[in-house]
């Protein structure tokens, strides 16, 4: 380990959970609802090589672009800090998702029943990668309400994957979604925890 030093003071270890979903599904809202502070934003600068072939070709002088991620922090105890990261919404940033998903405890996929198809790419991505995830249906006012079995069917979700209703604006509701995810992840990767 590069970082090991015997006289090192005790530092907490960071854990991350990703919050994914389509544009406007409430990712940053959920991050803000449960975090200690308002959501922060961090940016990575990408060169044209890392972005690959896409619309940058139309702006020849611009060789770089930035991808922004909103995130929040929850200090759990002296030993662990939990970070929640909203995933970048555009699919051309998949490689950023790879970095984010590496070592993640799991992911919450926020679904908006008005645009259910928007969360298909996230479901596909985490299924393929083997990252534990739960689907949280964000209940927007005025949105058509469906039963959870209907949403499960529409998303073709495996029966073992938890699906819950939530209000991403509310701390208690968002916290329950995270608890559902942590239990699910523990079941898959460790052993059930109460």
């Amino acid at each position, binding site marked *: *380990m*590069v*970082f090991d*030093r015997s006289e*090192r*003071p005790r*530092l*907490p*270890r*960071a*854990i*991350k959970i990703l919050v994914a979903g389509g*544009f406007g599904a409430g990712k940053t809202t959920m991050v803000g609802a*449960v975090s200690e502070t308002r959501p*922060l*934003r*961090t*940016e*990575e*600068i990408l060169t044209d090589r890392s972005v690959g072939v896409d619309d940058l070709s139309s*702006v020849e*002088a*611009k060789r770089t*672009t*930035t*991808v*922004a*991620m909103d*995130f929040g*922090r*929850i200090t*759990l*105890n002296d*030993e*662990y*800090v*939990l*970070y929640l*990261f909203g995933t*970048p*919404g*555009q699919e051309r*940033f998949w490689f950023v998702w790879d970095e*984010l998903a*590496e*070592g993640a*405890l799991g992911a919450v996929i926020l679904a908006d029943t008005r645009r259910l198809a928007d969360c298909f790419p996230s479901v596909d991505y985490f299924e393929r990668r083997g990252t534990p995830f739960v689907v949280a249906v964000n209940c927007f006012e005025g949105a058509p309400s469906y039963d959870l079995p209907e949403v499960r069917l529409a998303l073709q979700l495996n029966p073992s994957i938890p699906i819950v209703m939530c209000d991403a604006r509310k*701390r208690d509701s968002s*916290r329950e979604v*995270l*608890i559902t995810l*942590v*239990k699910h*992840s*523990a079941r898959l*990767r*460790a*052993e059930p*925890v*109460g």
Partner: protein
Amino acid sequence: MSATDGPTDEHWIDPEIIRPYVVTRGRTAPTRGRFDLISMALAIGPPPGPDAGLDPEHLSILRLCREPKSVAEIAAHLNLPAGTIRVLLGDLFDRELVSAQEPQSEVDMHDVKMYRAVLDGLRSL
């Protein structure tokens, strides 16, 4: 500016793009370590004197890291890209001015103690 907004300034010099490279003197990778987005850093040892050859950004990081902070948090507070913070943290690590803690890794995801800590922490929110 966020990537989702798309480039708004097509002028060939974009200060937001130039500044990070000036701060790191053109370096794009830290000399040591990898510094994940959620690697934690903490300032250690006595504060460096003016002859330590540090830039204002280094000193800002040391001030922020009096309490443990992640690379992502430092980047957000200093309004610099995470890649730039990684380079500067590498400098500070080399001088033994910060200690760092790598995040919980994929292989550690079988640790029941970790899950209990997360559940307990979430329930006490």
